[in-house]
């Protein structure tokens, strides 16, 4: 019986050689299919290997965006602060294990007593770590509930930057898929690995937290590294060309990481996450002419160059005019409204994903962008940019914001005894 018991760690060793070969084939095929796209080949280690869990910042923010997402928001259902802290400790241990490619618990999926449910659910057995990152965040409602009650003695530790987002014009938010006291973002190159991680954290949290909503995503819609080619969203446009990149150390300090002195010290080294589920009205978009699509976005669909320019990374010239004498980039174009120049220099680190939740019963694709953006202060960054977009963006005709979330993502887990959010609860 013992020889049948395979640990995930051992399975990884076995899978190692095959994994490298597989990635090579995949990268080659991708380049062929995408023709002139010419993405830099992904290295075997980043596609299937393990991303370090501990560090100054949480992994999963500037880490190269892998292809798959499972994002979950939880309600905390216990009133007992000690149980919440205990869960965060348990989660940290399980997250460190799973991101290293191990079972969620020490016994594992197949080695336990036959009478007991396993302490890992088992669907990731034999799979490599797949670049899994797990990133935790705390919502405003963890500090005070809707009635203003201080739930866990944390009210005076709520950062000012974690202010509820204002209502933007055109918002069609569904409360049941918005908000949450806690969130966990799982990113991986294999959807099964991302789902496995969230499922096991939810299982560990029974009785302490309850899943409020969750979202699967595929096909990253922005790059967080110059090593990555700019991907396309479901409108078929390159997305995230002007994103903050991991290499931009100075910009990250100014725009991404919370600095000492910004307010609550427990957040220093952390970042604020805004999530927006943006449904795309795919069918009407697909009936829109190429010229109009490009005008709405402000870039060409092929190369991603700003209108009036040639290459994707050419600077945007807002003064340029077209042959008809009108501005090459319209006043209501998406790129103009989202640009730092129009938003007091505000920039975001985006790591959104495409989503398709099947069809909506009316024969329409239930699909769009699960937007996620990290930043130092949402009041100065996301709120400023989204206010512009919500008021003026001509693209809004094809978009519906149906879910919204805001989370304070604490700094990284430093050492063995550390756990997610320890500085908040100390």
């Amino acid at each position, binding site marked *: 019986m013992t020889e049948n018991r395979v640990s995930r760690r051992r399975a990884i060793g076995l899978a190692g050689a095959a994994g490298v070969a597989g990635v090579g084939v995949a990268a080659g095929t991708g380049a062929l299919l995408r023709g002139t796209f010419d993405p830099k080949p992904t290295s075997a280690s980043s596609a299937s290997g393990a991303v370090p869990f501990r560090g100054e910042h949480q992994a999963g923010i500037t880490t190269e965006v892998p292809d798959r997402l499972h994002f979950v928001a939880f309600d905390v*259902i216990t009133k007992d602060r000690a149980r919440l802290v205990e869960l965060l400790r348990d989660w940290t241990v399980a997250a460190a294990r799973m991101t290293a490619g191990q079972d969620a618990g020490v016994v594992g999926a197949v080695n*336990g*007593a*036959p*009478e*007991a*449910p396993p302490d890992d659910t088992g669907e990731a057995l034999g799979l490599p770590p797949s670049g899994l990152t797990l990133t935790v965040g705390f919502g405003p409602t963890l500090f005070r509930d809707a009635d203003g009650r201080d739930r866990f003695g944390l009210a005076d530790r709520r950062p000012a930057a974690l202010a509820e987002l204002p209502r933007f014009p055109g918002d069609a938010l569904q409360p*049941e898929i918005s908000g949450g006291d806690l969130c966990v973002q799982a990113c991986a190159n294999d959807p099964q690995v991302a789902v496995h991680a969230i499922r096991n954290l939810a*299982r560990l949290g*029974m*009785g*302490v937290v*309850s899943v409020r909503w969750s979202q699967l995503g595929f096909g990253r819609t922005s790059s967080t590294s110059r090593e990555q080619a700019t991907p396309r969203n479901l409108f078929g446009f390159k997305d995230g060309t002007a994103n903050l990149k991991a290499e931009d150390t100075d910009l990250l300090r100014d725009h991404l990481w919370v600095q000492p002195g910004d307010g609550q010290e427990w957040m220093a080294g952390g970042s604020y996450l805004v999530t927006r589920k943006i449904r795309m009205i795919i069918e009407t978009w697909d009936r829109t002419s190429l010229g109009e699509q490009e005008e709405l976005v402000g870039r060409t669909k092929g190369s991603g160059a700003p209108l009036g320019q040639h290459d994707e990374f050419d600077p945007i010239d807002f003064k340029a005019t077209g042959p008809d004498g009108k501005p090459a980039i319209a006043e209501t174009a998406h790129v103009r409204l989202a640009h730092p120049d129009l938003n007091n220099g505000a920039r975001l680190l985006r790591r959104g994903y495409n989503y398709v939740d099947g069809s909506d019963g009316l024969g329409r694709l239930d699909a769009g962008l699960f937007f996620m953006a990290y930043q130092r202060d949402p009041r100065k960054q996301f709120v400023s940019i989204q206010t512009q977009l919500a008021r003026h963006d001509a693209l809004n005709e094809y978009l519906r914001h149906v879910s919204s979330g805001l989370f304070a993502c604490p700094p990284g887990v430093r050492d063995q005894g550390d756990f997610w959010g320890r500085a908040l609860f100390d």
Partner: protein
Amino acid sequence: MRTTRFLALAAAGVLAGAGLAGCGAEDDSAGDAAGGGPITVKASDTACEVGSTEVGAGTVVFNVTNSGAKVTEFYVYAAGDRVMGEVENVVPGLSRELHVELPAGTYETACKPGMIGKGIRGALTVSGSAAPLTDDAALAGATDSYQRYVQSQTGALLDKTTEFVTAVKAGDVARAKALFPVARTYWERIEPVAEIFGDLDPKIDGREEVLEEGMEFTGFHRLEKDLWTTGDVSKDGPIADRLLTDVKEIVAKANAEKLSPLNLANGAKELLDEVATGKITGEEDRYSHTDLWDFNANVEGSKAAIAALRPVLTERAPDLVTSLDAGFATVDTTLAEHRAGDGWKLHNELSKADLKDLSDAINALAEPISKVAAVVAK
């Protein structure tokens, strides 16, 4: 169905030893009976007078007379509301006897007029020589205790199903509708035991869509459908007779079945799984929407199985007992918000938020309960 696995475990002999120990324990305690006549219990709608509150260890007999207007129940509880013995369904004007084996210790007696709530409680002290239970005897005691519970439920199941069937055959739709969730209470409390008899379970409790090709749709849900959709049960006489026949058969089999402690542990978990899948969604009683009656009964059945295992769990995993107690308390509190008179709100009267709260409470309890089987088996 889902029972295959633990039946196999039981057969493999984990419990054969416990079963033998159980027989031994019974023989021993039967030898030193408490002596004296039955203890009279005068139950009314507002009082529960127990003739003696101090008795000797051994077999104790209670004679329960109901002088009230409501149907009542009488229980003897050990710590943690572990049921040592009970009589169900004592209708007004009738007397019933309860034989219960009690080792030395402190207990509580309870009458439950209207069959709801914690009942009217009183203390009962049992003194005398009773050897301390060994581990195996504790497991044997658990199955004995739970088997007494099953027997009490099957008795009431037969009574209430008979009343329900009689109402259907008499064409008394209003009365049949009122009796439907009541009769099912006794069924739902012991459902994992009923599921052991895989051929009878679908005949009695099967829903239309789960029946295999060529199988007739019979049982509670067939009558439920007719009662609530057309209100015409004039042709349902044979279906009603068949239900009663099937219930009689399963009652006889359930009472004869030797259960294992693992049956109890897994049964307690399965009852909550039943709640989490069929009752939360309202799919079980889709015509009557009386799912909360079943929900409550499933929880009570789960609690009874855990209560029977309590001495073993207290010794082997005291922290688990604490979590289980807290979990049951939360479920009870959450569910109590939806009481309506002597019964429950209908499933379609609950909001999605209500159902999520109930679902969270069940998940929070089911998680520690899933650990019980491994504790019992070790």
